């Protein structure tokens, strides 16, 4: 399948602080890729590189066949970009902003924008700066729908939204992307929302990529096992079978890509006495926290 985005060997530092080294990922046409990570792991950095607002120290991103450092007006017209916090020209009202953007896009779909605006309880002359975060998110989404781009780049679109608007945004976006065959690249640190939206995920930790695979594969292979140990001082070495673990008194939460029998064999090989061994079902958020840790 054709790749809409290809990032090769991306390396970036802020001064001497490494963000990541040799990051590679592709986004296939029609897929929804979620970039997940805690604050400060490089999500927005990646978005900035993709949009040409940041030159990586090395490596490159190819978007729709062009290097992101020098995107042509045509390719930019094919990228819908939603900035963190749904930033838009807040000094405009919903009529003015539609009029402004429509002049730049020959295939502008005015109806798509106004259909969504009709659902908002705002007056046409109300300035965007006076709207709630949820309403602003709908304005930003409406503008992207009207632009009708090939690729949607959404930077932490859930930030500041209440659960209702988050759900509305995600359902609207997913239906649109799947019906129109659009490609979506999105970041978020509210993982529970992403489960309903994304096909593939990349999980960032500080300086490294922990996971890059389809969400279904991740959710079916990554597991949490809980058990009680008699010796609460027990420690596990991360890497190999144990991806991560948390210890709450004598209860161990162990995160792994291995099966139950493999984990039990591993515990036996270490001579660890345990009881009440069980697999715990996880949501994507549980899996994310299990993988990256609570701190």
């Amino acid at each position, binding site marked *: 399948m054709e790749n809409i985005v290809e990032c090769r060997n991306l390396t970036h530092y802020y001064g001497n602080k490494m963000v990541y080294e040799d990051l590679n990922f592709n986004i296939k046409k029609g897929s929804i890729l979620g970039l997940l990570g805690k604050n400060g792991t490089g999500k927005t950095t990646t978005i900035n590189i993709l949009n040409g607002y940041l030159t990586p120290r090395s490596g490159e991103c190819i978007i729709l066949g062009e290097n992101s450092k020098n995107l042509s007006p045509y390719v*930019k017209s094919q990228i819908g970009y939603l900035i963190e916090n749904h930033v838009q020209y807040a000094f405009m009202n919903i009529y003015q902003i539609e009029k402004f953007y429509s002049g730049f896009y020959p295939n502008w779909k005015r109806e798509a924008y106004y259909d969504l605006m009709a659902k908002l309880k705002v007056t046409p002359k109300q300035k965007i700066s006076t709207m709630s975060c949820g309403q602003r998110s709908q304005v930003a989404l409406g503008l992207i729908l009207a632009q009708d781009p090939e690729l949607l780049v959404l930077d932490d679109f859930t930030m500041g939204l209440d659960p209702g608007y988050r759900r509305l945004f995600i359902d609207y976006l997913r239906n649109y992307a799947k019906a129109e065959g659009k490609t979506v690249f999105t970041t978020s640190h509210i993982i529970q929302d992403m489960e309903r939206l994304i096909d593939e995920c990349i999980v960032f930790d500080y300086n490294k990529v922990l996971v890059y695979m389809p969400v279904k594969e991740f959710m079916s292979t990554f597991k949490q096992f809980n058990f009680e140990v008699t010796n609460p001082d027990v420690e596990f070495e991360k890497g190999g079978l144990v991806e991560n673990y948390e210890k709450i008194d004598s209860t161990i939460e162990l995160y792994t890509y291995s099966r139950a029998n493999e984990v039990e064999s591993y515990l036996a090989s270490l001579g660890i006495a345990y009881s009440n061994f069980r697999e715990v079902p996880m949501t994507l958020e549980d899996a994310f926290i299990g993988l990256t840790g609570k701190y």
Partner: protein
Amino acid sequence: MWKSMFYKEWIKIRLVFWLSVIVGVGVTLAMYMIIRSELADTPVNHYLWKIMNRDFVFFTLFKFLPLGIGLLIGLAQFIPEMTEKRIKLTLHLPINEEKAGLQMVAFGVMSLTIIFSLMFLVFIGIGRYYFPYEIIRVAAITVAPWFMSGFAAFFIAGMVAIEPIWKYRIAYLVIGGLFIKMFFILWKAGSYIYANGFFLILVVLFSISILFSIYRFRKGEM
């Protein structure tokens, strides 16, 4: 596309634009009302003698007005772009980034030209009613750098606002401040008669300074 860009810029500055027109033209009119009352109290010959032989500048009230207007238009245009880094939206528009920056600057220059032309027309028009041609000619030469300072302030405001790093902003402010000071060093009427052409070239060169800040922003300087 330039129509859309101008539309956005107009929404940003329209209040400041009308305020500048009212204040600019109003102060010019007020200046002549003061002159009118002074002429009522002073013999005309003595007033003209003061202007011609004692280097009396009758239009000092006017002096920093274009500078203030240029700065105000610049801030009205570029501060909203940098608030929440909205410049990212502008640079993401499907036009060349440098072209987008220059279109914004072109709109500001056009707005300032309209405001300054109105002020200049009122200044010269009413001035010709009170004073002979020679005095008004020297007055026009004297106010020319003041108007140019308004354009310079606008360009510097854009360059400083878009610049992503504070220490560079401060450096631009210092350089820009010194540059603008150049327009106000000499006080005598007509002093800059031979410098106006040179000033004009410098101001035109400054007009593209925003491109440097845009380049640095896109490079991701922090």
